[in-house]
Each structure stands twice: as structure tokens, then as C-alpha cells.
């Protein structure tokens, strides 16, 4: 296993990530997280291949609005421990990692903000620990068993990118997802390349540290024999009867989890949800619209507070 520390960040980026590093032992792994502010907790969950840095421009405004903001790095990403065996990763294991952190911090009245793989993980935690959860925010993710999108069934580029041996070569040796992959999925590409891309690349410096970038794509169910098929089936079923207050935010230009398909399906699953609010952004919408997303979440939670937690 490998662990990066905050010193792994280029000096020019450390100012943009001023948070004290905290670590928890979850299921035997060393998990890095940020814990800022006081108030009801808002937990910001990233996916593949990002880390807490994705939320850098949302932490301060949420803290200013009177919330405690917790941003864990998934085991395998960011400043958390990075197992070097594929078998160390599974969807249920990552949900158990999040559950361990939430219980160690004894968090209650949690608002979970879920993006990409932070969706299946965070929502599975919410459905199995409803007494700890106050509200949900859902962004560019999915929670059902069949292929998320036509994109994920295509050989070019999706299945080719993580195919046997090609995944380790392309995403490992050539850093395809952590580098160019994120770049291609933001709107302000020049700004992203200048101000953020190095932070995603710096924490995945070697092929072995990038393992999860090709392991996660292989966990997306493409048929009913897939490893996570039953978990997603359960998750969809649980969500369909959930009454947790929910906010849906989506990138208007998201081509991978397009709003017309995905935000709409979440709205069908959770008809009481607010939204979808469309903001400027592709899949990594936080890179283009972080202040607006933070405002939407803050104002949603303010309204819940006024209404005694009811939506």
C-alpha cells in the first residue's frame, strides 16, 4: 500500500487546500479526511478519480453558513491509503469504510453530498443508517442495477479504457483518467489545467497508486451477472421508499450521466426531491459551479431547518 501526505501537493496548490489533515482507521485502512466548522454535519463524497480537492471551493461557504463540513478521501484516492491489490476494493467495502468513519465521529443529522461513486457509496450508507441521516444531495451519479448510460456499454472509449491489461496500461502507466479524463469532463478546461489538474495528478503519482481508477469502472454493472448487480437492485428499492429530504443538482452539459436520463430518474425514484437544479458543468460540475452548488445546498438546508427538517 502507499500513502501520500499533504506534502505531495505542489507548493502552488497547498494554499488552495489549507485544511488540517485528519486520519481515521477504517476497516484497517488509513482514511484521510477534512473536518471544518461547527453545526450539523455536511459530508462531501467524491468519486473516481478525484479526492476532497474537488470540493475545495464549497468547504468555506458551507462552514460560513453554520455547518460542520467533513470531506473524506475514499480509500485508494487522495491522501488516503492506497491498496495495491484489486481485490482490496469492492462496493460494499467502500460503504463500510464510510460507515466506519461516520460512526467513529458519531455523526448525526448528516447531510450527504454524493457525486459519482460517492453516490452508490453514500446512498448505501444512508439507506442502511437512516437514523444518522438528515438529508441527501445527489449530483452526477446513479443508483440502479442496469448500465448507467449507453456510454458505459460502448467499447470506445469506455470499455476499451478499462479492459484487461489495457486498464493498467492506459489508466495506470499513462494516467488517462486522473489526467486527461477529468480535463475532458469540465467546461473551463484551460482554467482547470492551470489551477487544478496538478492536484488530481499529484496524489496519484505512480501507476500502482492509480489502481482504483481502473477498478471502479469494472464495478459498474453491465448485466445481471455483474458483481454489484444485487447491491444496486437493493439500493434502488430502498431509495424508492425513502422519504429523506433530497436535493438534486446536475451539470447542464454532463455527457456521461446526462441530466435528461439521470436527474430525471432520481426525480422519479424520489418524487419529493427538490430539483433538479441545472448548473454549468459536465461530469465534474464542482470544477465549474462550486459556489452555486454550495449556495443551493446551504439554502436547501436553511429551508429544512425552518420547516423542522421536513421538505
Amino acid at each position: 500500500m502507499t500513502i501520500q501526505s499533504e506534502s505531495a501537493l505542489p507548493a502552488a496548490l497547498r494554499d488552495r487546500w489549507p485544511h488540517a489533515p485528519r486520519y481515521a482507521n477504517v476497516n484497517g485502512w488509513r482514511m484521510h479526511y477534512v473536518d471544518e466548522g461547527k453545526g450539523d454535519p455536511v459530508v462531501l463524497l467524491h468519486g473516481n478519480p478525484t479526492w476532497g480537492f474537488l470540493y475545495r471551493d464549497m468547504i468555506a461557504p458551507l462552514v460560513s453558513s453554520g455547518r460542520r463540513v467533513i470531506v473524506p478521501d475514499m480509500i485508494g484516492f487522495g491522501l488516503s491509503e492506497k491498496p495495491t491489490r484489486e481485490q482490496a476494493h469492492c462496493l460494499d467495502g467502500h460503504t463500510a469504510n464510510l460507515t466506519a468513519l461516520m460512526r467513529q465521529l458519531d455523526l448525526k443529522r448528516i447531510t450527504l453530498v454524493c457525486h459519482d461513486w460517492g453516490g452508490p457509496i453514500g446512498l448505501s450508507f444512508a439507506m442502511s443508517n437512516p437514523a444518522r441521516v438528515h438529508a441527501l444531495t445527489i449530483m452526477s451519479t446513479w443508483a440502479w442495477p442496469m448500465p448507467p448510460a449507453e456510454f458505459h456499454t460502448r467499447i470506445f472509449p469506455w470499455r476499451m479504457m478499462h479492459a484487461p491489461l489495457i486498464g493498467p496500461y492506459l489508466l495506470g502507466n499513462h494516467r488517462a483518467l486522473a489526467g486527461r479524463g477529468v480535463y475532458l469532463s469540465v467546461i473551463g478546461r484551460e482554467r482547470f489545467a492551470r489551477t487544478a489538474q496538478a492536484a488530481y495528478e499529484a496524489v496519484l503519482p505512480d501507476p500502482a497508486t492509480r489502481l482504483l481508477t481502473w477498478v471502479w469502472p469494472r464495478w459498474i454493472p453491465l448485466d445481471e451477472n455483474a458483481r454489484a448487480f444485487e447491491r444496486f437492485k437493493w439500493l434502488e428499492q430502498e431509495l424508492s421508499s425513502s422519504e429523506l429530504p433530497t436535493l438534486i443538482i446536475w451539470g447542464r452539459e454532463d455527457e456521461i450521466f446526462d441530466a435528461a436520463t439521470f436527474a430525471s430518474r432520481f426525480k422519479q425514484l424520489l418524487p419529493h426531491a427538490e430539483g433538479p437544479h441545472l448548473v454549468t458543468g459536465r461530469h465534474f460540475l464542482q470544477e465549474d459551479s462550486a459556489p452555486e452548488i454550495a449556495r443551493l445546498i446551504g439554502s436547501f438546508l436553511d429551508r429544512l431547518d425552518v420547516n423542522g427538517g421536513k421538505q
Partner: protein
Amino acid sequence: MTEVSLVKMPSLEGKRLSFALAEDRVAHYPEFRDFFVRTFDLDRKGLAEPGFVRAPSGIIYAFIFIGRSGIPFPSGLEIYAVVDALEPIDVDVLDRDLWSILRWMIGGVGAPWTVEDFDRTGRLYRVPAAPSG
């Protein structure tokens, strides 16, 4: 030489196996495992010996197959360059060879997997060894 070809086990005297690439889950798409079983006669040979190919650079690569309880063989695969024992490798040559080996693999796996899609994917992610379109 531009092709990848199967070769017999070379003499390993004065050589070392230099790690190049590993795959823990060769049957993620089962047709890839089938390709290796077919190409290296693994149903008959099992773990008895590695497979060997010669890459465009002339370097020979060893394919070492991995077994895992409860999973059809092979479950995984490691690729090593057979190089002079005490000499460093040229990483650019290694990368171009790996590209060629993966391209050869895709061609052998066959439809719906195509070398054209492999090349396009390499170009999209700006892999230096990918042919320009």
C-alpha cells in the same frame, strides 16, 4: 520487425525478468481470458511454463499466468521483459512494445473489440505510442 509473434522459451542465462505490466482480473471481459487460453494452450499447459512473445523491438516478453481459487484459470497475468540481467531497460521502448502487445491482444480477442477502437482510445488519451489518426 513490426509484429508480435509467439516464440519458444528463450535461454534465461544472464537475463532477468523485468516487470512490465500486471492484470489481476484477466476475465473481466471473458473473451480476453479465452484469447490467452487459446493462444498459449493453457488448458493443456496450465502453470507448467510461461508463454513468450517477441515484440517489435526484438525484446522477448514472458507471460506469467496466475491462478486463483474458485476462479477459472488464468485469473490474472503478469508481463515481464526478458532483458540482460544487470542492464537497465529503455522505458520508451518498453512502452512501445506494450502498446504493440496490447494491440496484438485486441486483434486476437476479435469482434466486437477492434484495433481501430484501441488506436482511437490511445489517441483520445494521448498515448505516445498510439498511431496518429
